[in-house]
């Protein structure tokens, strides 16, 4: 499997990243290099092996359902670019 210029542009778009011409070119190469490594890995027969989520076979710990957070809106909004009436303001979203 390999990617071409068009794939990179599409990925850039999905990730909302502006990719320059030069960057796109080098990205095609470096991502294809990684994919070549993945291809090598895929040669290993894993048909009867369960995917491993964690090397220690650890499981998710659960938290009791108790409110532990307080209202810190002021602190959070102090670093936001724009707020009004308690809302975060963002460039207009049009669907």
């Amino acid at each position, binding site marked *: 499997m390999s990617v071409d210029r068009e794939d990179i542009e*599409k990925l850039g778009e*999905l990730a*909302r990243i502006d990719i320059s011409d030069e960057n796109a070119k080098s990205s095609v190469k470096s991502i294809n290099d990684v994919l070549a490594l993945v291809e090598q890995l895929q040669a290993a027969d894993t048909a009867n092996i369960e995917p491993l*989520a*964690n090397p220690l076979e*650890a*499981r*998710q*710990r*659960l*938290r*009791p*359902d*108790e*409110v*532990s*957070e307080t*209202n*810190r*809106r002021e602190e*959070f*909004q102090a670093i936001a670019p*724009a707020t*009004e*009436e*308690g*809302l*975060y*303001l*963002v*460039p*207009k*979203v049009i*669907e």
Partner: protein
Amino acid sequence: MTWETVIGLEVHTQLATKTKIFSGASTAFGAEPNTQACAIDLAMPGTLPVLNAEAVRMAVMFGVAIDAEIGLISAFERKNYFYPDLPKGYQTTQLEKPIVLEGKVDIQLDDGRTKTVRIHHAHLEEDAGKSLHEDFHGMSGIDLNRAGTPLIEIVSEPDMSSPEEAVAFAKKLHALVVSIGICDGEMAQGSMRFDVNVSVRKKGEALGTRTETKNLNSFRFMERAIEQEVERQIDLLEDGGSVVQETRLYDGDTHTARSMRSKEEANDYRYFPCPDLLPVEIDQAYVDAVRASLPELPEARRARFVESYGLSAYDAGVLSDEPATATYFEAVAGQCGDAKLAANWVMGELAARLNSEDQLIQHCPVSAEQLAALIARIVDKTISNKMAREVFSAMWAGEGEPDTIIEARGLKQVSDSGAIEGMVDEVIANSSKQVENYRQADESKRPKMLGYFVGQIMKASKGQANPQQVNEVLLQKLNALL
């Protein structure tokens, strides 16, 4: 040409936990914007999610309630997309290993049939925040209080074939999740939201192209949205066109739907396993304990209502689906001692009033105790059904207890047979022409002619004569003249 409709539903159900699925921020509805959005909900760098045990328990509770297999090991994925109300740039959800696997829900249709709708799976995920599109100097406002609220998304198989079936299924799910206490069921607050997948095909043919109408938050909207979409697709196909696979958005204000995005520009979500969350493992003992804690399900309640109150299956169904309605009915029936009359009032006058004023039974201005006291006055013949409706209106308007209203309005029904006989005699004496007509009339026509006399007698009694007694006495006296 006959077309077949195929409908599948995805139901987003907010779980009634106290806190978010991955953070300790409150989920209480109606707080000031962003006062319940903590660093984790805001996706501040360095924060990590910790799964809420209660969200897991509620999801399992749903699973055992629909007889589903439970995913003893379930895992979270990231669904990547950009939208300002999703601060992380991805929604944490489940894809490959959901917590609830295949199950089923039986729905009862108006014609008495029962149909089984299969559940494909249900998975845990987080809700997004809210975007407010009113104009803030050309910008949008974002409230992230809802971000991270736990949801289960319930995905049905495309087993429904009409808007009625889809609504019956949706109502059934609503009754179920409210009954088992995992969702508050407040549709107007968005606690349950439906996405409907609709396609049409000619009988016997392969499935047609489907569209998805998103975010319907009322049963009425859902029914209308499906009806419109079916019509739109059939029109398209009959005109030789084709249906485009797309996402549509229904506007409850204008009752119209429009295309949101087509498949070509569809999101590519690039799902991958969430590296911040380990697989969730539960054991069979846990599942068994949750199953043992299940409260009475609507299905069992319906059977009990038929059995212990002697209600018809239909009435029992209407009264047992919603826990709040069931509780109200049982309180009324228990106190007034006439379950059938209680059922008629709760499903009739009360339901009509709640419906016309768009009110939930939880907020009903007439308490179960008051309604029971009113029905008791019908049972002991103090007032007629008609008078009771007047008293009910007065109670609804806050005029107080039924006995006080009956007294204040002088609504006591006359059941004294002497007084009624007197009124009947008087009306017969004053209506010689009508009496003559009655005598001459064909026997089959006579029952219809009674109306005139009854009307006169009720008028004479100012509406207070016991109508049943009036009928009996009148018939007896008229027939004596034949």
